[in-house]
């Protein structure tokens, strides 16, 4: 096995893991974590592909991953805003019921 393959398979593994958990886990925060894990997998794949061979790595995929990380941060932010809103509402409903 080469380093490239190691990184690629690891990336694929983490991606599959994350996506499966995103689909199966019901707790909102943990789902969000799973989503972030999955995106880490894809990024690993891209960066491994950028660094094939001996020369300087291709800057384009690195820039793409950088973009991807920032996008995921924004997604995480808005997801947490929503998740906390949802749970607050659930709490309020519970309080009303009690």
């Amino acid at each position, binding site marked *: 096995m080469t380093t490239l393959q190691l990184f690629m398979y690891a990336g*694929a593994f983490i991606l599959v893991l994350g996506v499966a958990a995103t689909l199966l886990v019901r707790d909102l925060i943990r789902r969000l974590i799973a989503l972030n894990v999955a995106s880490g997998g894809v990024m690993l794949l891209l960066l491994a592909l950028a660094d094939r061979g001996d020369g300087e790595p291709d800057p384009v995929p*690195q820039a793409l991953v*950088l973009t991807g990380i920032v996008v995921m941060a924004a997604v995480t*932010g808005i997801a947490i805003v929503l998740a906390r809103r949802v*749970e607050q509402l659930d709490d309020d409903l519970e309080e009303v019921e009690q």
Partner: protein
Amino acid sequence: MTVIAFSDVDVLDMLVVAAVAVTAILAIAIPRRVGATIAFLVFGLLLALLWARVAAPDVAIAEAALGGGVAGALLVDALHRRQPAQPNRDRRRAVAITAVGAALGAVTFAALATVLSRLTAEPADLGPLALEAVERSGVSHPITAVLLNFRNLDTLLEIAVVVFAAVGAAALSRDRIRTVTDPGPVRRVIAVIIVPALVLLAAWLLVAGTSEPGGAFQAGAVLGAALIIAHLCGVRPARAAGGRALVLVVAGLLAFILLGGIGLAATGTWLALDLSWAFAAILAIETLLTVSIGVALAMLFLAAGSRDDAAAADRAADAPALGGAP
């Protein structure tokens, strides 16, 4: 940078990959939020290590700043909430679902691995084209050249993602963000020491970005973290909410679009930079973007917590009225 090779693969690489995989499993498998969140933070740290191993220091800085910093803060801040009790699933059903999920996952992974195994180990022959073009970009660091010159449209759009996430989050926060009124002595010290240090770090990353790893994203993420800490430590002007903060957030995006228009006027092509002023333009736009990203990330954090803050404040206000019940 081979450390100790073992059948073509560096042992340290193997260890880091294994650790990344394990933390990934932990992050998704631990049922309690606290454990899962921490596992995820460690996952981020290890990923940053891995990025270092694939010769991507820029990405490593960004991962550390965003994954460990702002996103970490967002996740950890959500932890204080009581984790809602999961409706009691039938245990056998849960096992069955997990088993089916694992089986499907295994099949997917196998398929994916088959596809990946067909990729050649030859580096992409188009990559060097980008490296060659760096000379004509106005900056010497290739990634900055890609982000702010060759593919600056992507960057512009990505800034838009952050900006509009902040706009959306601000719209969803219920109240005005409240200042932390009594930060305590330790936090005051932190505010005095850490915050300026982080701002300085952000500035360094920003300037360094033109010639070595670093740049607006990393600087922005660090600045965002600095703003969050400042807020939590009771620094008043860091209360990133309301119109003024939004103005800062959209200013970077608008300036970028304006730059695109200037490129059109000057060279006949959107977003094109003339080599004579490309460096100045890139540095100027990066500065604005740093502020934009930093404030936007801080807004996201504050918006996420605003409801709970408000609820806590309400409770505090209600408590005396209840007559100090035990």
